[in-house]
């Protein structure tokens, strides 16, 4: 049964790589395998299949880490803390990946590596939260205290995320799809008309995109499963003191 997921992942991810990179981009797609041209993006539009899933996993990992943190607080089972910390460790990896991939892409599309666009700010904050989470863990020497306080911190830090996800993008000007921009004629803030920001995926792109999300999510759970099992092994092998 477990093997099924792995083979599914192998096939899905291969399909995503093929589906994301093979289809030619043409101005007026006629065939189902052609992607529409977005002025100013061209081939660079393909980032969506690989960048967005990493950002999604960053958030998912945080939620899982917090979920198991709360479960630890309720049940005081140290294995829950291991699940929590391995979810967060992977979250940190994907957070770095999302930041770096986005930043490299931004250099060639928007002109510089960093713009303080609301979403860039959000991912940066998440990076800081993950960093603070691990800094806190390393400063606590008792296992129970570490589990308890890092769970609490993840909850406290989570409370600020709605401000970044829902409020900031609505109050500030951004470059990501769905953001606001300043109308050059009137100077008023409005929903954007820029092709990059108004970006709407064609149906065939959407299929690949969701396949990609699924594949990355399975990949994440597989890694997570492995890391917390290794932590558990490590813990149990030391138990015979």
């Amino acid at each position, binding site marked *: 049964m477990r093997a099924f997921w792995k083979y599914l992942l192998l096939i899905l991810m291969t399909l995503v790589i093929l589906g994301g990179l093979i289809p030619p981009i043409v101005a007026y797609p006629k065939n189902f395998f052609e992607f529409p041209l977005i002025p100013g993006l061209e081939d660079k539009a393909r980032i969506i299949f690989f960048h967005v899933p990493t950002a999604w996993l960053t958030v998912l990992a945080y939620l899982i880490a917090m979920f198991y943190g709360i479960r630890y607080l309720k049940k*005081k089972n140290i294995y829950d803390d291991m699940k929590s910390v391995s979810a967060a460790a992977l979250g940190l990896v994907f957070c770095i990946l999302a930041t770096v991939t986005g930043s490299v892409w931004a250099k060639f599309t928007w002109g510089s590596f960093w713009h303080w666009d609301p979403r860039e700010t959000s991912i940066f904050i998440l990076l800081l939260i993950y960093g603070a989470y691990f800094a806190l863990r390393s400063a606590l020497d*008792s*296992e*129970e205290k570490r589990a308890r306080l890092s769970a609490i911190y993840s909850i406290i830090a989570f409370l600020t995320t709605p401000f970044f996800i829902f409020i900031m993008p609505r109050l500030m000007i951004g470059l990501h799809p769905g953001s606001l921009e300043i109308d050059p004629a009137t100077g008023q803030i409005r929903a954007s008309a820029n092709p990059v920001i108004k970006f709407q995926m064609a149906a065939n792109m959407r299929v690949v995109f969701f396949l990609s999300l699924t594949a990355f999510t399975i990949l994440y759970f597989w890694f997570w499963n492995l890391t917390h099992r290794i932590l558990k092994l490590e813990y149990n092998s*030391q*138990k015979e*003191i």
Partner: protein
Amino acid sequence: MNNIQLIVKNLKKTFNRRLVFDKLSFEVRAGERLVITGKNGSGKSTLIKILAGVMNESSGSFEYIFDSGKIDREDIYKIIGLVSPYLVLYDEFSAFENLKLFAKIRNLKIDDDKINQILEKAGLFNRRNDLVRTYSSGMKQRVKYASAILHDPLVLLLDEPTSNLDIEGKDFVDELVQNFRKDGIVVVATNETQDFKYGQRIINLDDYKNNQSK
């Protein structure tokens, strides 16, 4: 008539992976005096802290029952008084100020005369306005006794009650335990055999170390 009861069921405490004690069960009824003993590091202080509600147990339960109603974890501090060597008072205040602050924070209706009375009993009256910082360790121990009985608690938890005390101080503790309310509970954690006289019953924590149930 007050009827306080302490029920401990299957209490277990571990620090990280080290087992402190396991399957600890006992009951103490109003008027009883209990002595807890055990080697150094056997968890006497840990047990006292758990019973005082300031440390969490790993599993099992303990509860104070008062007139057949269970006392909330939040409210345990209202009915216990604790004295121990690791208890540290605010040393930038005098003994009198310490007690007065405690009374205020506890929301007690106690006037200055009552505090002076308690300080006099503890033999600190002459130096009541000196900062605690300038006290000797025995005098600090006496202030702790004063602060433990300030709110007239139902349960007295004493960890190494006679440490740092001179003969006079030990007499004071003897008197205090003897005169402690007859409907209350006293739990004494100690290694000194001379302190065993405080209790009718002795629990040795070394008997609760077995790990065999694994």
